[in-house]
């Protein structure tokens, strides 16, 4: 009997495998059928309870219905627990990064975009001085550009072959070396001007600098 139950549970493994990315696995062809069975069991049970009470809905009847819901949920989840426990395990490098590297970069980008907007808003609200706002926004913009670059490279990497990825890496390192020499030559940089569209009246720069 135990062996039979184990086989039955293994038949349900697609549900357990897919459950890593969501309890309801989309690649389980029997998912809807299984949920349908449990849904039907629930509805039939409820109708039976109501019929037994002559469809007279009282507090005890409602509580019995809720109790029955718990029983159905219990059976469903015990089944799922068993199915998950006997499912074959997979080794996945992405385990430690649930939203993936690109996902983390996207999240950082969104945070930086909001931070830039927030700094612009604070400046417009006259909380930040122009100098502080520009400094902040320049920092956020520089980091945001770096993040967007990384996202593009990651997206690009996904489409390239291994050979192309290696060529690209070598090229990038050469570029970096050349740029390092240029910076060493102390060429006057051209800073990026932060865009403060909504400027309040002019600040007293000398006074603020003194502070």
């Amino acid at each position, binding site marked *: 009997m135990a062996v039979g139950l184990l086989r039955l549970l293994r038949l349900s493994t697609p549900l357990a495998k897919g459950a890593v990315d969501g309890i309801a696995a989309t690649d389980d062809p029997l998912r809807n059928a299984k949920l349908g069975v449990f849904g039907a069991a629930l509805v039939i049970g409820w109708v039976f309870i109501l019929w037994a009470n002559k469809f007279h809905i009282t507090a005890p009847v409602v509580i019995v219905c809720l109790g029955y819901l718990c029983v159905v949920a219990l059976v469903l*989840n015990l089944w799922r*627990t068993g199915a998950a426990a006997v499912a074959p395990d997979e080794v996945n490098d992405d385990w430690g990064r649930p939203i993936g590297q690109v996902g983390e970069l996207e999240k950082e980008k969104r945070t930086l*975009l909001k931070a830039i907007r927030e700094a612009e808003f604070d400046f417009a609200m*006259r909380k930040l001085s122009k100098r502080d706002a520009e400094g902040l926004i320049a920092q956020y913009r520089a980091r945001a550009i770096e993040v967007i670059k990384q996202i593009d490279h990651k997206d690009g990497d996904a489409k390239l072959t291994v050979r192309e990825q290696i060529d690209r890496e070598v090229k990038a390192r050469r570029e970096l070396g050349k740029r390092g020499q240029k910076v060493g030559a102390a060429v006057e940089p051209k800073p990026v001007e932060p*865009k403060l569209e*909504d400027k309040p009246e002019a600040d007293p720069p000398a006074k603020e600098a003194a502070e």
Partner: protein
Amino acid sequence: MQDHVPFSPIALVGTIAILVAYIAAAWAFAAGIAGNARKSRRLVNASVYGMYGFSALVGLASALMIYAFVSHDFSIKYVAATSDTTMSTAYKITSFWGGLDGSLLFWVLVLALFSTVAIAVNHRKHRDMIGYVVAVIMVVQVFFLSLLIFTKNPFNTYLTTPPIDGQGLNPLLQNYWMVIHPPSLYTGFVAATIPFAFGIAALASGRLDDLWLGSVRVWMLICFGFLSLGLILGGRWAYEELGWGGYWAWDPVENAGLMPWFTATAFLHSAIIQEQRGTMKTWNLGLVVMTFFLTVFGTFMTRSGIVQSVHAFGEDNVLALQFVVFLAVILIVSVGLIVHRSNKLATRTEFDSFYSREFAFLLNNWILLACAFFVLFATMFPTISEAVNGSRVSVGIPFFNKWMTPLGLILLFLAGAAPLLAWRKTTRSRLKEQFMFPLGAAAVTIVALLIFFPQTKHLTSLFVDELKLPVTLINFGLIAFVVGSISQEFWRGTSVRVRQTGSDPITSLLGLVLSKRRKYGGYIVHLGVAVIFFGIAGKAYEQRTDRTLERPAAMAQQANKPVGESSFQFGGYSFRYDALSHTSDDHKDAVTATMTITDANGHTLGTIYPAKWDYHKGEGQMTTEVAIRVLATEDVYVVLTGFDLDTGLANFTAFINPLILWVWIGFMVLGFGTLVCLIPQRVVDRLQWKPKTRLGRAADVSIVITVVCVVMLGIASQARADAPAGAGNAAATEHIPAGMGMGNSSAGYATKNRPNNDTETRAMRELLCPCGCARQSILDCECGTAADLRGKVMGLMANADLSSEASRDHAYDAVLAVFKADYGESVWSTPRSSASWLFPALAALGGLALLFVVGRRFVARSSAAAAATTAATTAATTAAASSEDETYADKLDDELADTD
């Protein structure tokens, strides 16, 4: 005759459900730990499903328990002890958490439901740590289940014949606020488990980036919201049911909910610093752990009997020991993990300036922690004192007020000041510009109050008796400051948005709040806090009178007595005592006085019905049903404190409670702000409809505002001014002739020996009644003992010289000394031991000094790093200047255009 041995299938299945849940919890714990440690998907999934199964089992056990209540299964001891057949269904369900055993099962149920939702929402985002999260939650569940299985099983049955009917629920708990107050407070307590579980899981998995912080912040906000709801509902219950005219008495059970509220609030602020600046990781984890620790500690306080309270569950040493072990485990594991991960948690904390929002948040964290630890210390002080000296002292309301009032005022100031400050640094000119309007509003308010309401200059003692300040005046000034500050934020924010989007002000305001929900929701919460402080300020001007009226007006007319003897004037109102009726139903006897209130102009404000109820199963414990007439400026609050059904004599205590309505309204505003913070982005996306016309839009907004105002006012003005049951519902009740059933009830005690001067009032307020009424002063207590002790105070002061301040103080001290000699130090509500003020003072001042020393270091460090930062910025901007980066800069601008 052979005794019938009861068999309850409900109890059997319920006990089995709890036992199987125990096994399920153990499985989910083991699978969760192993799954995340071995990075095994199947084990993590098995743990998650195991936890869902556990929740279903706990749900089943709870459904069985409630079914036992509604089907009157008195073979279960707990059901028989906390319910009876005459109770309404709502109160039968309330009985589930009305006693200790059931409340523990209810705790497990609420945590099971919360954890199911939390795991279902977060398992995808945090699969690298979700196994640990499940494991931590299961450890907490196993602890409470252990209490249920080994010590407090609510399904225990009688071994002999069960009673035919139960003993009924405590009469004080049979109040509609009690139906929702404990669940909301428990939900607040339980919600703190989820952030704790995520915090410990982050430590265990080593994923200490900011990813977990977002989920934790939401759950802490839910914890904050429910704790706030639970506390305010508890206050409302006390106001309506206990009949002492107040709503907060610093009772240990109230304090148990307040302590985690302080630390949760501190976390909600410091988490923003971590998000904005990437610092304070250890501090935030510490606050998460502390909040959870305090929820369990609060539960321990109220269930172990180590503190005396109006509504604690009684002494239980076995339970106390189990809680102590669990608390020790929480501390050891949490501190151990934080130390273990200290290298990953280390961040370089630096502040650009003291005039920055982050420093204001740090200050706010210090004040909130000072509040939490002071409340903890003062609540535990009687127990600590007993353990150290062998003598139990008392800590009453005046002692708490002396310390918490200044701390509250500093918090109120910060609630208005922090929104005005910018992150990193606010320059002096900006500071002046931002603070000008709020400070102006505060100054105008103070001047206006001094001119039109000079009584606000009244001095109140802070910290010690010698330090006196016009607290009410300062309070009103700070309220104006906060309202000014928040209004300015909304005004300027809306103006900026109007300029940016070109839309009308109403749309801009809604867009502003919805796009920056956390920020503006938080501002609404601050506004709610200011409104609550406005309501609290009225407490200083509370008026009270105790009157005995010989007979109702109708009886006076019959006896040809002057009707004027049946009324009294107080606080600008006239109270006419019309009738005293006695009614009875299956559940209780009720004695109800009918009273008509008229104002100074002779306009009738209405009829009120203060009453006393005597539940048949209440073992003689009568409940007070106060009558409240709610006005915008004050509540007229009348209590029937005693009566004689034969003669018609009745004693009344009347209170005029100014501004109290605003406490409830303030909470509504606070709750609304919390809900705004919790609106998910998906809902905002759906709400972005294009309105038809400007008129239609204005109509929509008006409807929303009207609905919110009506709901707020409707809920806030609820009052127990019920008509006598016999008058309005004759079919359901039976009129009992005078003198039958209830007889006299403490007639005359509350009005007996009332103070004649301020010194007597002061002494009576300071002395606690030893009758067992749990920390009421002899001024407020309605019992005979309190009346005798008031007489004793008056006797001692009869020949005292009260002509000068010094002689009044001398007489006051002499009375206190006599009472100490007779009843011990516990009769004083303010402990005189130096430890009582030394420890809080050292902690508060030490914390403040530390804050500034550390703050200076952070600021100095920041200054030193400023050059490096500038260089880095220049380098970054230089790098960004390349042709490739110009393309990316354009791309960034495109993305910024789509960001709200």
